[in-house]
């Protein structure tokens, strides 16, 4: 009966485990110990041959040793695995400067982007978004807006600027026609905006279009004032351009508002310091506005003594051009993907 020195066996194996440098090496050691012809197997074959008294004590010791070695193996295996992974990680890399393949994503037209923003801002202030027909009649485009035939403003708009259809009717030359259409059907108090296409006979160049977008606004109530208009419009412009802006009102003339004004905004490019775009004035023209003329209410069968409010009409293309620094109005209808893919 040879003497079995569990202690030295354990120490011997522990040293081997400690020295192991790879998982593969550790696996070989494991097989040497726990394998079919391994030392543990050999010992376990001997155990039944031991005297009963000894067998129990030895068996317990043997069991503990196996357990402790197992733990050691697992611990080492984990260590080596982490080490190996780390080595692999350090070796593997990608060149992140390689340009990616194009993601198949489309683009919104900048007018759509602006519309969404505008609509969101005004809706948050309780304005309803309304649309109207692009083919109009003389009543809604002119007469109801207090522009009777033979009025100088009518001539300017109708002879010089408005497209007429051969079969009768015309292309609306402003979105103000929708003010009338809305007030014919809805009673105040009311708050609407009308983003839409308008058409004007003009020579097309970098700042003139024949088919472009306007933003109309109308708010009518019992006591809506110029002071209210200033607050609403400044808030809108501030949020639209995402910066602090100032506005100013200058006297103007429109047949459908009284008083009438031009709305100027502090230049959004130079913040009012003066630049090429604002021609060093620090101000940019935004559009026309005013307090709705009593005749307009009358034409919509509303009592002008009962209601008052403001209306405005801004060039949407111009707002978008300022926002995105687009230099040429012709780009909007160009369908040029080099332009559209930037939005």
């Amino acid at each position, binding site marked *: 009966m040879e003497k079995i020195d569990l202690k030295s066996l354990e120490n011997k194996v522990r040293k081997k485990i400690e020295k192991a440098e790879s998982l593969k090496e550790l696996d070989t050691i494991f097989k040497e110990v726990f394998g079919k012809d391994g030392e543990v197997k050999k010992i376990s074959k001997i155990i039944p041959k031991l005297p009963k008294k000894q067998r129990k004590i030895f068996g317990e010791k043997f069991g503990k040793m196996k357990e402790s070695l197992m733990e050691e193996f697992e611990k080492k295996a984990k260590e080596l695995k982490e080490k190996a992974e780390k080595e692999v990680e350090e070796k593997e890399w990608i060149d992140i400067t390689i340009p990616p393949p194009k993601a198949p994503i489309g683009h919104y*037209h900048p007018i759509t982007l602006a519309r969404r923003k505008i609509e969101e801002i005004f809706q948050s202030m309780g304005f309803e*978004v309304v649309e109207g027909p692009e083919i109009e009649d003389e009543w809604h485009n002119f007469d109801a807006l207090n522009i009777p035939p033979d009025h100088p403003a009518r001539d300017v708009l109708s*002879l010089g600027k408005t497209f007429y259809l051969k079969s009768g009717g015309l292309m609306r030359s402003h979105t103000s026609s929708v003010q009338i259409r809305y007030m014919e059907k809805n009673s105040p108090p009311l708050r609407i905006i009308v983003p839409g296409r308008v058409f004007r006979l003009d020579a097309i160049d970098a700042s003139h279009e024949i088919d472009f977008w306007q933003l109309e606004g109308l708010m009518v109530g019992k006591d809506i004032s110029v002071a209210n208009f200033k*607050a609403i419009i400044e808030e809108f412009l501030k949020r639209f351009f995402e910066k602090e802006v100032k506005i100013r009102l*200058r006297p103007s003339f429109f047949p459908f508002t009284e008083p009438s004004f031009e709305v100027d905004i502090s230049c959004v490019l130079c913040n009012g310091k003066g630049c090429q775009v604002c021609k060093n004035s620090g101000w940019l023209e935004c559009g026309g506005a005013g307090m709705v003329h009593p005749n307009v209410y009358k034409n919509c069968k509303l009592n002008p003594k009962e209601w008052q409010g403001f209306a405005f009409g801004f060039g949407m293309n111009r707002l978008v051009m300022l926002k995105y620094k687009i230099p040429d109005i012709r780009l909007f209808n160009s369908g040029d*993907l080099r332009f559209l893919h930037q939005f």
Partner: protein
Amino acid sequence: MKFSFNWLQSFFDKKLPKPEKLAEILTMHCFEVEKVEKIGKDFVLDIDVLPNRTDCYSHLGIAREISSILGLKLKEEKWKIQEEKNLKAKDFASIKVFSGCQRYTARVILDVKVGESPQWIKERLEACGIKPINNVVDITNYVMLELGQPLHAFDLEKIEGKKVIVRFAKKGEKISTLDDEKYDLDKDILVIADQKRPIAIAGIKGGKETGISQNTKIVFLESANFDPVIIRRSSVKLDLKTDASMRFSHGLDPNLTEIAINRAAYLISKICGGKIAKGVLDYYPEKALPKKIKLEIEKVESLLGVKIPKSRILKILKNLGFKVNQKLEVEVPTFRRDVSIQEDLIEEIGRIYGYEKIQKQFPISALIPPKKNSEIFWENFVKDVLVSLGFTEVYNYSFLSKEDIENFGFKKEATEIENPASAFYQFLRPSLIPGLIKNIQKNQAEFSEIKIFEIGKIFKNKKEKKALAGVITGEKFFEAKGVIDALLKKMGISNFYFDFYQPTPEESKISIWKIKKSAEIKIDGEEIGFLGEISKRILEKYKIKNNIVAFDIDFEKLAKLATEEHEYEPFSVYPAIVRDISVLVPKNVLVEEIMNVIEEAAGKLIRDIDLFDIYEEIEEERKSLAFRIIFQLKERAILPEEVEKAFQKIIENLEKNPNWEVRKK
């Protein structure tokens, strides 16, 4: 319009602010000053006078504005005309007005010496961009710039019969004007005539023959108030715009004619040594009277949103020439033709007081949430889906050229513009497709694959409709079909289907589609749109290199059918069994026919059938179609025996058709 700073200064004793400062003040309170230019010792202000303010087409008018804004008093003018008691105007000439004139005022001035004007008149005219001619003509122009009333001087000795008639021209009449131009006149054009011929185009330009010359001795001076509409029409018709026609066509104060004619006569007598004949020849059947308006101070405050003291209101109005008492009863001077209601007065008060002094204030209003605009909601929804599927949104012109209309065969339904911007924009678009095809034409050199769409109004037979259309370049019919499928399903529309395009023979001749590669998109038998490849004819016309698949949908119908309602449908928790089957059929057999047979044979057990392969090159006459059938039940696990039985039934049914063959693997 050009104004002389020195001239404006001459209306005041006190010094005006510097020209640039004055320009800024005018811009903020009256009219935009576009430019200030130094000319010699003077400054010229280019003022954009608003079209309803004809009283300000004059230095006096602008001076009045300055007086009100700055609170400066206007100087009292000291001049008086001296008439010759023994010479009576009516003995030298007579006037007869037939039409087109609210007032006609004339004077006769004798013994006039025509010559050069004094320097100060020439300087002021030149500052305002008017060329000096001779003293008489210059004085008429001077008074126009000073007071706003256009005047005309005739050589009375050249007027036939010494009778001046205001009438419409007769057909065939002609006139040579002072600048040597010839005009053919007609019955719509108002003229000043003598007994024989027209001697001036009323309110626009004088005739050459009766003009003032070096030899003129007797001047017939005209100061009239012509009908603005008539003058405007004549001016448009003759394509002739003058300083006079511009003023007349915006409407002037009839009471101004007399003041102006006296002023001019006074200056002529002073400068040209003339004798003013006694009396004014005056046709003035209906005198213009001042309007009266009651101003409510509460309305001023409520409309402007600012409290302005009554004393300030009174001062503003008085300085502008209004008469007003403590009860705020306002008398409007006749030169303020633009003021007729209370709101007009409030504008005067607001602008002179200064809009910048009105503090912004958010309105107080009921908390009513804005109504949702469902069409705009769905428009945005469609854009989101298409953009996420890789489409770029375009906005095209609403106009098409005649060539486009012909190419696309839209002649019958297209709406023509009476006054197009150019031949390129002569018609309204009856479809979005031509615009999209032209977009491809323009972009194809830079971009190999193009996917674009547009939502916009189209116009058919004068009726407008919102439409949605898109195009994809390449052999992409099924990609486009997939786009429609995804879009409609996302919009909550599931009962749509694709139907073969069956055009009438006439339609197919002009069709822009490849007829056998097109489909109608239908819901309940109604067509809501179209999908197909664009015909070779169109591709060639527009020099498109690539194949194009297009879809064209009635957006309004689509938005009506769309719904946000959606209900969760429980899915099966039991395993599925998948079987593949491959069928060899004649080439003209539709996939749908085969799928219907499969469905019918074992529909209840099938969750889904997918076509995963089409192989056409297998035989001359037949194609091979491979389907994946997924068997699954919601209520329990499906048994392999059931699937086997069903699968056999499918094979059996498919092979009932002698030309179909199931390929067993």
